[in-house]
């Protein structure tokens, strides 16, 4: 069979959504970001809301999200994405506005912006990639780094006496009156990917219904930062991250 026969439209079973651009992704092989980007692009495409969606990119590995998904974007200062999204959404209340943030961005430097946007019940979706590490800056300790977990700034493992406890921010956000949907998902296997996609769609639907803030945490891997192979990272995540950050809905109003 020649290549041309293989790419015959009649044989097409799965097509990459047009919303994913052809810009080569800078993410490491095995990183969860690529999968979550694809899901986001697919959901926006399937819901037909490309013209009405504005994304807010963070500081961190996903800063270049705007290169990969073909919608209007704003890139926010570190941790400020929920405030930027608030400014957009308040002036464009009929648009779909989402932020895409990592754990350092959302749960350390941007804690105040995250909590207050959620507490105001901004009709936005927050996608929260939690891999327990600062990926872009080279693997430093994050607020969600597990106890005993080694990073470049906790080389002997996170010591709670020195660094405090891993911050379960999603649980905290579920307590706020302003959030309508708080869920924790993963994309390490097919079932997880399917559930994560449904969660993202629900987040957009909640925005449309003006129900409040939707928070979708994706417990993720950072094989470069964790210094493990992609497959070993998945195993490590299941064994260590999931007990600390159990999957499932924390709130669904």
């Amino acid at each position, binding site marked *: 069979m020649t290549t041309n026969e293989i790419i015959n439209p009649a044989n097409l079973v799965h097509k990459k959504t047009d919303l994913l651009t052809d810009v080569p992704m800078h993410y490491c092989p095995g990183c969860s970001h690529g999968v979550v980007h694809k899901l986001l692009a697919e959901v926006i495409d399937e819901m037909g809301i490309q013209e009405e969606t*504005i994304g807010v990119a963070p500081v961190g590995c996903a800063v270049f999200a705007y290169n990969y998904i073909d919608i209007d974007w*704003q890139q926010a*200062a570190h941790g400020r994405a929920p405030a930027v999204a608030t*400014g*957009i959404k308040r002036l464009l209340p009929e648009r779909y506005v989402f932020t895409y943030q990592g754990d350092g961005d959302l749960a350390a430097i941007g804690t105040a912006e995250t909590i207050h946007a959620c507490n105001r019940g901004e009709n936005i979706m927050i996608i929260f990639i939690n891999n327990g590490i600062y990926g872009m800056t080279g693997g430093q300790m994050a607020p969600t780094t597990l106890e005993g977990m080694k990073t470049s700034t906790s080389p002997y493992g996170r010591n709670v006496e020195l660094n405090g406890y891993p911050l379960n921010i999603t649980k905290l956000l579920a307590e706020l009156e302003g959030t309508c949907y708080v869920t924790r998902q993963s994309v390490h296997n097919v079932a997880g990917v399917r559930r994560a996609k449904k969660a993202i769609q629900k987040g957009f639907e909640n925005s449309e219904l003006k129900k409040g803030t939707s928070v979708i945490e994706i417990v993720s891997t950072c094989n470069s930062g964790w210094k493990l192979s992609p497959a070993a990272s998945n195993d490590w995540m299941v064994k260590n991250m999931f007990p600390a950050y159990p999957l499932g809905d924390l709130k669904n109003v």
Partner: protein
Amino acid sequence: MEEVRLMKGNEAIAEAAIRCGCDGYFGYPITPQSEIMETMMLLKPWETTGMVVLQAESEVAAINMVYGAAGCGKKSMTSSSSPGISLKQEGISYIASAELPCVIVNVMRGGPGLGTIQPSQADYYQSVKGGGHGDYKMIVLAPASVQEMADHTVLAFDLAFKYRTPVMLLADGVIGQMMEKVVLPPFQPRMTEEEIREKYPWGTLGKLKGNKKNVITSLALLSEEMEKTNNHLQAKYREIEKNEVLYEEFQCEDADYLIVAFGTCARVCQKTVEMAREEGIKVGLLRPITLFPFPTETIKKYAEQTKGMLSVEMNAGQMIDDVRLAVNGKVPVEHYGRLGGIVPAPDEVLNALKEKIVK
């Protein structure tokens, strides 16, 4: 018929913003400027013009809400006072780099630190030299009356959109708190989304089919690209310096000595000029209205005509640097100022003028 009202400078800003079609205000309370947000909340513009007024959780959040709103091509603003403006510097640097138009009001109070709630002009350097990280400037307007608080609000938005740049209204606690009569600007409708798409096609209003996506960002990892961004910004600042200098001259024609002062100090120094002239000392007052761009050429011209200049500021001597750069050693330039929230009196300034300049 024009409408004359008696109000505080802070209230005039709020009224003018609503009237000139501002889309969104985001702020955090701090003395001596809280009346700006309070007035807006009382006026409920969301019921009339549709303007959004939101109290943010911090100055940091407020300036980033402005970033988001401005990125959509919307007219947006924030206001604060000195310590709060320090917190906004990160956001202002991003706004300057991403080339977003917005208005930032600083009703200055005495610092450093928590300082005092009394008026000051000690944020001159911070405002005109950049303030946050990186090579950038803001257009800085220095109102000296309640009328100018209203007029400059309208002007600030015009300049912000003309150059896609943040514009600061640099007032102080006196101008913010004092009451004077003011003619408010006429109502302008807010721009529709269609108008924004046409006039500001860079705004993130949602990517329409057939259009390229819009991205508001300040990131360029490649140095060559970032240098290009910087060169573009610098070219814009040179253009602003060429076109937008504003100043007022008071009894300068025959002056032997020149006082340079802005904002509240300029009001005080008008009296000083009159007192000096009664004593036969020919003094003029040059009041920069734009602090960036600075009236360098005009001051240079007066360096040929006068025997000395006094820069009067409510700080330890900041604008004097720009006066001296303009004068370039031609005549002596000295500074007189009060610190910590004290407004100098006209006779104090006259004594300083006699001691330091008129010898």
